[in-house]
């Protein structure tokens, strides 16, 4: 039996006349890695914003440990143990890389108990974990995009979260860097942190997730183990369009007929 960390129930989010999310429900088990996928514009980032308290949902609710996130101020969500990264990275440009991470350590979950010095020490540890120790003293505005993504992860980790929401932290990384990032996420997860990962790289998602939720046009269209979900016709349709699915169905029928025909024909020699 695993414990539910985060419960998303019937969440709807409307912007003007557009429902960016509607009737989205799922549970995230403590200690698991949930992959959240969907085509562009399917509502992944909106859902991240609802979970992290940046948006208050128009309908439904997100509960964490029995507490409604919508009732908690954005700056207090991290004190409950939920941290996030931004898809569009938001470093404090004039601060050094280490200072950026230290801010998280100062004001995050255990920040009240940390001195300024201890926050900087914690920041240095995390920079080593994510591989940014070499640029610790540089202004954050100097970083390359992959390094800015690493900085986002380090800032989120500095909050000492139980649940970490990662919004496309692997976009723009090369194959080696993706492997490194996956190793990092696995080690974070191994320490008991529940991960919710939004990513376009299917290989990465499949290799790290314990379960996957698929969004399309703001609705949940599939949920389950990675292999099952990716084989689902609805998911394929959402990603590749209905014509492709129809063609695949026709091919499947032809294949089935061929097999059936082969089965009906008596074998000539012993099988």
């Amino acid at each position: 039996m695993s414990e539910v960390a985060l419960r998303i129930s019937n969440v709807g989010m409307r912007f003007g006349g557009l429902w960016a999310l509607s009737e989205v429900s799922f549970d995230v088990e403590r200690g698991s890695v949930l992959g959240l996928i969907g085509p562009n514009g399917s509502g992944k980032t909106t859902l991240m914003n609802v979970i992290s308290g940046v948006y208050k949902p128009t309908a439904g609710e997100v509960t964490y440990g029995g507490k409604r996130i919508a009732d908690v101020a954005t700056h207090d969500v991290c004190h409950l143990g939920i941290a996030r990264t931004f898809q569009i990275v938001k470093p404090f440009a004039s601060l050094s890389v280490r200072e950026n991470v230290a801010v998280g350590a100062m004001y995050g979950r255990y920040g009240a108990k940390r001195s300024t010095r201890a926050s900087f020490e914690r920041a240095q540890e995390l920079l080593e974990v994510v591989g940014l120790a070499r640029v610790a003293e540089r202004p954050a505005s100097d970083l390359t995009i992959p390094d800015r993504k690493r900085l986002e992860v380090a800032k989120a980790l500095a909050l000492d979260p139980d649940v970490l929401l990662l919004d496309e932290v692997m976009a723009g990384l090369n194959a080696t860097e993706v492997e490194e990032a996956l190793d990092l996420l696995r080690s974070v997860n191994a320490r008991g942190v529940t991960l919710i990962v939004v990513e376009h790289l299917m290989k990465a998602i499949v290799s790290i997730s314990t379960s996957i939720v698929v969004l399309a046009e703001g609705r949940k269209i599939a949920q389950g183990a990675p292999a099952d979900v990716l084989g689902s016709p609805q998911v394929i349709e959402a990603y590749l369009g209905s014509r492709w699915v129809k063609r695949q169905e026709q091919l499947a029928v032809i294949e089935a007929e061929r097999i059936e025909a082969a089965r009906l024909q008596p074998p000539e020699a012993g099988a």
Partner: protein
Amino acid sequence: MNPATLKRIGLGGITGNPIAFAVVLALMALLLAIPLTHNGYIELVFRNILMYAAMAYGWNLIGGYTGYVSFGNVAFFGIGAYCSAILATHGVDNLLLYVLLAMAVSAVFAAIVGFPVLRLKGHYFAIATLGVALAVTDIIANLDALGGTGGLALHQVDEAHFSIYYYAMWLVALGSMLGTYFIARSKLGYAFVAIRENEDAAAVLGISATRYKIVAWTIGAMMAGAAGAVFAPANGFIDPSITFAIDSNVFPIAMTILGGIGTVAGPFIGALLLAGANELLQRFFVKAHTLFFGAMIVLIVLLLPRGLVWLFGLRGGARAWLKSLSVYKA
């Protein structure tokens, strides 16, 4: 505020360039010797420099570190001055009490006004703070108990001890400077800068923007209030037009920007240069001094967009400086 002007490249850490800070501390030590000249005029000029420096430090916390450009800080200076005047008319003749009451009243007023005003951003915040300053001016001008437009006279110490006002102002300026230094290095300083750089990202890291904006604004108000509390008895007389003068509102902002916004050395360097230049120009060009003064501000903003403190961190001479200008404009 343009983020590029706030960029800290070449400015050093969160407190600014350490050499610039050391230079400023040395200059402060030298300023202790000014009363030894026994020249009332020179003492007045430098007391004004120290007064503007304290107000500039107050503005720098909210406008520089936190990134909320306020046009209302003169209200706190005025409230401080009137606190002294009220105590003086009730027979209290203690400079320390004046300063303490002024800081307390300015802080309470700032916290109360800050709550609604700091919910606004950018231009709206700037306009609202200007409104606060004008409202306070008009309220005081219409209160007969505070002398109305006629003002209030304060009892002054005798000639022989007059430098006490200078030393008091020196302490207020030093306190504002060191206060800024230690606040900037503390957790508070990082919260202010995080809010300036990106309020959404700050919130996700657990920083309540409303709370820390009010803190920055309130501490800044205490600095301006303390300066006002010393100004009133030193001047011997206050009325709304002296206390809430447009100069007192705009000078500290111009000084901070010229010296180096969001640094510890900047406000003092700006105050020394601008107040000093203003005084000299007034002596040599009795009528046209504001023209030269304005031209000087425009030139410095164009040529040193990051403020004078930036020069302390400049490496590579004139070429690097020219390059920085083209980078800034791009």
